[in-house]
């Protein structure tokens, strides 16, 4: 685990407060998508296929902050689209940091160096750049369908680290990923000096350009078992060790679709970050009127059967840590020993 103690404490105390209040469904991370516009068109992405007038739209900072306040989650992830193309990204991040929200700005880093040189951001323990890295140079450039992006991202990571920013990476894995090459990638990211890494299998977006390489559940478990069976102590993962164990088939979790609620120009997305089954006007409406029983593996919903993505299962893993002695014991053991 590489999450700073202050962040761990903020999340732990938040979860305990929710449980003491008896809240059945509470969010952990707000997925805030201020725009869908992107400067890449990745093979496995189903987020950006919209008509031009939709791609030109973006949320105002006021709309973003209203969503943040409504939701109340202690962490805010800003994906997209490419958030560094959002014209108000500086003021938005500043306002979130002022609210003491832990911000993960998810970026492909093509524009990161430029934005840093422009002075758009200031280093803060609340702000982390979560750079999209789908493996070593060859794999990453292939996943984003453009040569040279890996090198650009590495350069931007170095620049951000030099300037004192927190930097993590986020990696989506697809069918055909090599466990050995991924282990080399983990080494390379640690050598680079990133704070931690996030890994997750990709979700089989029906709108993604490449429909052939999404991982099925069994293959996901095989891949993660091979990749993480004997993790090096120097590999730091910016996510729950129980979630990684789940990906390896060592934990059996059910999805928590309300754990990472999504807000974008259309409203509050039902039921989760990955599926688009409609939109609610308010967070309360999302929580109260979504038919949650229709989602997750146990529901039998076909769209959920192979999904093992972090946005549904990481909240489950965190809840598991705080809801049972076994969960707490497993988390502490994995954190202290580095064994998964």
């Amino acid at each position, binding site marked *: 685990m590489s999450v700073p103690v202050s962040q761990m404490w903020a999340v732990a105390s938040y979860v305990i407060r929710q449980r003491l209040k008896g809240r059945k469904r509470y969010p952990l991370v707000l997925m805030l998508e201020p725009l869908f516009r992107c400067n890449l068109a990745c093979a496995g992405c189903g987020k950006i296929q919209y008509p031009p007038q939709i791609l030109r739209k973006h949320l105002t900072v006021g709309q973003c902050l209203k969503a943040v306040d409504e939701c109340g989650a202690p962490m805010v992830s800003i994906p997209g689209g490419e958030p560094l193309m959002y014209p108000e990204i500086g003021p938005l991040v500043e306002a979130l940091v002022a609210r003491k929200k832990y911000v993960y700005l998810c970026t492909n880093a093509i524009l990161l160096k430029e934005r840093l040189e422009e002075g758009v951001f200031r280093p803060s323990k609340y702000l982390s750049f979560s750079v999209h890295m789908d493996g070593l140079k060859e794999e990453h450039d292939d996943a984003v369908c453009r040569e040279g992006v890996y090198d650009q991202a590495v350069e931007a990571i170095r620049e951000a680290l030099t300037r004192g920013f927190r930097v993590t990476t986020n990696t989506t894995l697809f069918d055909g990923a090599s466990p050995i090459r991924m282990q080399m990638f983990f080494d390379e990211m640690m050598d680079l000096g990133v704070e931690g890494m996030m890994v997750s299998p990709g979700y089989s977006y029906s709108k993604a*350009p490449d429909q052939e390489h999404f991982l099925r559940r069994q293959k996901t478990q095989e891949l993660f078992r091979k990749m993480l069976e004997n993790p090096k102590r120097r590999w730091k993962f910016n996510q729950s060790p129980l979630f990684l164990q789940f990906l390896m088939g060592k934990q059996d979790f059910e999805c928590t679709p309300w754990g990472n609620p999504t807000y974008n120009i259309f409203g509050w997305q039902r039921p989760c970050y990955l599926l688009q089954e409609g939109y609610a006007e308010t967070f309360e409406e999302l929580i109260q009127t979504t038919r949650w029983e229709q989602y997750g593996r146990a529901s039998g919903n076909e769209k959920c059967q192979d999904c093992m993505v972090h946005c549904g299962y990481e909240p489950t893993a965190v809840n598991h840590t705080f809801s049972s002695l076994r969960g707490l014991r497993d988390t502490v053991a994995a954190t202290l020993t580095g064994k998964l």
Partner: protein
Amino acid sequence: MSGEDALARASESPLKGGDAVIGDEGPLEDVIDRAFDYRGDVTLVRRDGSEVVGYLFNRNAEAAQPFVQMFDCAGDGPFTIRYAEIRAIRFTGKDTAAGKSYEAWLRRKAEHPPAEAASEPARGA
């Protein structure tokens, strides 16, 4: 929804930009669901004959008065239109999810050395 009020079910083949869906063969909800899933603009025809052209991003069949929501071609909106007001929906815009960007990338990579394959067009950039 009576048969008379209903819209035609879209053909089972994938929708293409310009395909028209209008008529009286299927339930309104089915056509609205297809329009909701479609990643291109549609033309929604109201019972009074007026039209809204744009992106249909939401629908709620379980509301007391079921409705759809759209942004028009200029990006203005959202406009909320009740199911009861809808006479027809035509799939008039290009399906942006039907692109061949991945195949194009594979082809370009196979045909050209990496340095030449460097400029993939971005979405909305």
